[in-house]
């Protein structure tokens, strides 16, 4: 289904654009990913800096931070997710419409970070919702967030619209809502979504 690169260039010289529907569709999708406007901790400050003039995330089509999950396409988990906040984060994710993406920004969001041994901190948001891009760092620099965003764009660009690996919003069977953990007497219940997250194998 791919268009011959050489033909594309030749036609371009004549002022004719040759493309495929998939390419056009993904081009449109990857350049209009609107993030949700919410910050959790200090990483949020870096996220805000990324959107400002110096780093200017708007260059990549992520200029409008939407205050409602219904209008947002991407969730940036910017900071420590406490066990008190985790159900709300999952609930917000569930309220977002497909297609939706998640960037886990910083050490806390991907693993608990410096607070990993705390009784009140979730050890990585990927225990409850699927994460597309993880960025390490404490906090990651704005360049790192841009890198993550570009990685996400590449991921969207590489998606095939039909068949087995098609994006979730084109697959009626795909799971789009994930169970919200309960706040129990001692800990969150369950402590992780078993179908989504398994204990990684430690390679020494």
């Amino acid at each position: 289904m791919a268009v011959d690169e050489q033909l594309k260039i030749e036609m371009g010289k004549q002022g004719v654009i040759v493309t495929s529907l998939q390419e056009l569709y993904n081009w449109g999708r990857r350049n209009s990913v609107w993030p949700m406007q919410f910050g959790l901790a200090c990483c949020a400050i870096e996220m805000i800096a990324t959107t400002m003039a110096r780093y200017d995330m708007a260059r990549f089509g992520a200029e409008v931070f939407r205050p409602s999950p219904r209008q947002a396409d991407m969730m940036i988990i910017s900071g420590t997710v406490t066990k008190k906040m985790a159900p709300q984060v999952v609930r917000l994710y569930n309220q977002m419409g497909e297609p939706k993406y998640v960037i886990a920004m910083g050490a806390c969001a991907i693993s608990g970070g410096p607070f990993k041994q705390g009784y009140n901190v979730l050890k990585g948001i990927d225990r409850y919702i699927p994460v597309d891009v993880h960025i390490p760092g404490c906090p990651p620099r704005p360049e790192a967030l841009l890198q993550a965003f570009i990685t996400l764009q590449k991921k969207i660009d590489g998606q095939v619209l039909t068949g087995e690996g098609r994006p979730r919003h084109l697959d009626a069977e795909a799971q789009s809502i994930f169970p919200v953990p309960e706040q129990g007497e001692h800990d969150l219940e369950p402590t992780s979504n078993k179908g989504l997250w398994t204990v990684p194998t430690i390679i020494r």
Partner: protein
Amino acid sequence: MKTVEEIKAAIEAAVPGAGVEVVTNPGPAAEHSLRIGQKHAVKVAEFLRDDSELALDFLSNLTAVDWPDKEITEKVKVTREVQKPVEGGEPGQVQTVTETVEETRKRVEPGYLETVYHLYSIAKKHGPVVLRMRTGNRTDDVSMPSFTSVWRSAEFQEREAFDLYGIVYTGHPDLRRILMWDEFKDHPMRKDYVEPDDYEYEPTAHDHVLERAKQHLSMEQPVAGGAE
């Protein structure tokens, strides 16, 4: 500013039977504190706030300390009577001798919860005056009077101490958990708090984390083996 001894005398003159004790701090800071009884606590607090010379109008900080049950080992000299054979006497002949022996005894000093208050005066620009108040024990007698009616800043800080230590402040207008969720049952800052077993993935564990991770793995192994 008055010394703690002078403040103690002033309190006792104003509120008879207040039961104030000076707790000395042997460190170089020498920041001595006053331990007050629960019975007249609110009256003492009102006196400290309203007294024209002290005018402690600002409760800067309220926190708590958990003092667990303490086992004390001490050596006691005991005098007792011992039967001893008579030296040089016939075999089987005994005499009673009084003897002083050192004995090691253990006793358990019951624990308690303690609230610590740091008071300042904005009007007089002095402080801090450190107050302490104790509960009866750590289990069922964990209440003490609330100072919210005296200093408004006590409200959230008492809620925090209630949340993390389990001290019940009687007379508090809205005593709910403030940091943990409402369904939570434990008090995380207590010494005997057992944190949830979150040690399933520890790639760089060391020290006590390594111990907990090993403990977690040893608990998990038989289940995994039994399933297969």
